[in-house]
């Protein structure tokens, strides 16, 4: 498994965890009762996203092995395709999250302000997830290429 695959796996696992946590917070904001705990959880979630971004950046710049080639033209080609797929998914997601609240809450409805970071950053997290899946799919999910 090369560096690009490891990074994609790292991003995939972190994205899934953060999206799952975001969904739990999202649901808690709509359950009847006190929203204070939910608002606190949103702040925790934002810090976790920030920590994951910094951690991911550090992980991405760590060299695998001094003697080994970290990145080559095929990796760049795969990443370029993955960026394209993720960009298209970002467009669909942005369109969807812009439309759905209107349908759910109605023309005069409202949504809690603390949910906005979860909705907006969630869209980017899903785009990151798509990016990682696109990379892993192009490498044949990690095993096939490296084991021959």
């Amino acid at each position: 498994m090369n560096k690009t695959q490891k990074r994609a796996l790292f991003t995939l696992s972190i994205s899934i965890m953060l999206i799952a946590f975001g969904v739990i917070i999202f649901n808690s904001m709509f359950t009847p009762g006190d929203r204070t705990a939910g608002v606190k959880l949103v702040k925790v979630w934002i810090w976790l996203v920030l920590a994951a971004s910094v951690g991911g950046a550090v992980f991405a710049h760590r060299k695998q092995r001094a003697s080994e080639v970290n990145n080559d033209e095929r990796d760049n080609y795969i990443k370029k395709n993955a960026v394209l797929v993720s960009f298209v998914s970002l467009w669909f997601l942005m369109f969807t999250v812009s439309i759905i609240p209107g349908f759910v809450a109605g023309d005069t409805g409202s949504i809690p302000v603390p949910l906005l970071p979860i909705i907006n950053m969630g869209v980017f997290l899903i785009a990151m997830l798509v990016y990682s899946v696109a990379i892993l799919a192009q490498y044949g999910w990690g095993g096939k290429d490296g084991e021959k």
Partner: protein
Amino acid sequence: MVKSELKNQVRRLRFENGELTQQKLADRVGVTRQTIIAIEAGKYAPSLPLAFRIARTFAVSIESVFQYQETKTSPSPTNGKS
């Protein structure tokens, strides 16, 4: 319709050159071992500079390593009917 295919002799040349491992070839041409595997399997067509580097590693011409083939496929009988 024209179908193109890029064949290669990398695997054969590796064995003819002292059973050069995929990793050693990858190190010499500056790519990862996975890329060599993908090229040998015909899953990835290398760039022209990489193709030249591979050919020079084996001290042969680029066409001795990579062969570009085009085959014409006839359209199915249902095509073109309204």
